[in-house]
């Protein structure tokens, strides 16, 4: 198989998995008339079988349903955090790149300062101070994830400012605002959108780590991290499935989104194809 077609296959598989994830998250809750919270102690901790493909947890709840609902919570929180982070990052990156000079230096020092604190630790600190709730988690993830977007957008704006069409627009009498909205923003948006999509798995990962430490979402919102945290007792008793499946529900969407976003990046930056991105 040639390199070209392997790449196409990979993109198709990724696209199918992303579509499956989105459909499962959107359609399973309304279509399946089963209560994910339904406790059935007579069927607790059943290993995976045909009637319960992922088995059941220590309260007899079906793990497949729990995982789908968990993915829904994690994806929503991840997407909200990624969106907030992208808006902050794009605004700061665009202001730094467009103004230049002292404002640029000050904002970039701010970015340096933020990136000197390990993200999870800063997240833990914010969550510990404002606990408990969904908003502290979203804010803490957003506040630690806007840095790369700010850097990318600033670099993009800097390179755009040197282009002839921007000069042409300015000498044609376009206002600052018009240059920013009509010429800079549309050119920056694809990069910002790509950064936002790539950030969703990161944000999900971050949220699940916080929830796993018992500092994230409240336990009644069963995110994937909460599921793994809740399964620790069963794991020590030898039941592996309540731990294994929620983790797979983090890994598979992450890989699928990375695969799709990789193809998208190649399309918008064809020259950077060989560069390694993690």
């Amino acid at each position, binding site marked *: 198989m040639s*390199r070209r077609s392997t790449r196409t296959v990979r993109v198709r598989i990724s696209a199918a998995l992303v579509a499956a994830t989105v459909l499962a998250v959107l359609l399973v809750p309304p279509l399946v008339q089963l209560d994910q919270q339904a406790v059935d102690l007579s069927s607790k901790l059943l290993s995976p079988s045909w009637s319960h493909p992922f088995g059941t947890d220590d309260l007899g709840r079906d793990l497949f349903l729990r995982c789908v609902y968990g993915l829904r919570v994690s994806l929503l929180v991840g997407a909200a955090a990624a969106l907030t982070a992208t808006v902050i990052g794009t605004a700061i990156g665009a202001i730094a790149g467009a103004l230049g000079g002292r404002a640029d230096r000050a904002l970039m020092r701010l970015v*340096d*300062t933020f*990136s*000197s*604190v*390990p*993200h*999870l*630790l*800063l997240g*833990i*600190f*914010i*969550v*510990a*101070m*404002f*606990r408990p709730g969904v908003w502290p988690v979203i804010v803490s993830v957003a506040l630690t994830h806007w840095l790369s977007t700010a850097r990318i957008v600033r670099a993009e704006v800097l390179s755009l400012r040197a282009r002839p069409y921007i000069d042409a627009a300015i000498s044609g009498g376009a206002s600052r605002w018009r240059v920013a909205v009509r010429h800079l923003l549309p050119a920056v948006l694809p990069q910002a959108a790509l950064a936002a999509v790539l950030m969703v*798995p990161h944000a999900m*990962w971050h949220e*699940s*780590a916080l929830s*796993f*430490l*018992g*500092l994230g979402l409240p336990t009644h919102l069963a995110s994937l*991290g909460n599921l*793994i945290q809740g399964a*620790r007792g069963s*794991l*020590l008793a*030898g039941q*592996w499935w309540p*731990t*294994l499946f*929620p*983790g797979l529900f*983090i*890994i598979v969407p*992450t*890989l699928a989104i*990375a695969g799709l976003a990789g193809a998208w990046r190649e399309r918008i930056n064809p020259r950077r194809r*060989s560069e*390694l991105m*993690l």
Partner: protein
Amino acid sequence: MARLAGRRLLFAAPILLVVTFGVFAIAAASPFDPVKAYAGTAALGADAETLERLRDNLGVDQPFTSRWWHWLTSAVTGDFGQSSVLRQPVAEVIGERLVWSSLLCAVAFLVAVLTGTVLGVLAGRRPGSLLDRVVTSAAYSLEAAPVFWLALLAVWLFALQLGVLPAGGLTDTASEQVTFRQVASHIVLPAGVLAVSQLPWFTLYVRQGVSDALAEDPVRGARARGLSESTVLLGHALRSGLLPVLTLVGSRVPELITGALLVESVFSWPGIAAATVEAATAVDFPLLAALTTLATAAVLLGNLLADLLYGLFDPRVKFSDM
């Protein structure tokens, strides 16, 4: 080189200042009440006068900027305040735990770097080969896997199913003393999992470096001179391919700290990370503030290390230019 180190340290000082200031500002903006946190459940039964006296003693009524300044001036002398959850000076808490965290991180990092180099060279030797595809896919999958999940599965497999390694802690519960044998057997799982979590990026970068270097002129020249394959691979390709990776080692400190935090909490390793989670759960502000500052200092130190390594291994870089 000393001048570069000095200059970088000068840049690091304001960052540390801003971070500590930010920590105090966040705490001031939060609904968190230091008096209740300090008194714990005793605050429920205490009369208003006692709480008022405590409030006065802790200096809570002052604006956060002056509390920050007070904290900063005593922190310089090594006094980071009193941890309310552990009822022990913060400096003491950190002092006892830093050794174990450093040991864990050092072992894990060493294992990750050695294994990553071997796997990276094997995969980068023939890009597109079966081995390369297996290593690359495994690396990407591992990179996506949450480290705490890997740690839990490792506990299940090695401690519960196979019963070959202890599931957590520093020593057996029955043992009173910390012996080398005990620590050695208890560190295998946490260090192994932490190493596995750091392995993917290192392997992928070495692979990229080696496969790029194999296409360059010096390697072609070495092949033309008839040097053996291992000399070409290890003496030429690896040497130039490893350069960019070495500089990344220092900049991976935040990821190492994050990984250690999660691994320590799964394995009940008595390190700094376990204390962080405890401090966060109990909203122990003095301990959290000190730990955040310490982690930031570690990251800045890692960046400095990255710069120094770069200059040390690449003779083309002059320190005076940096």
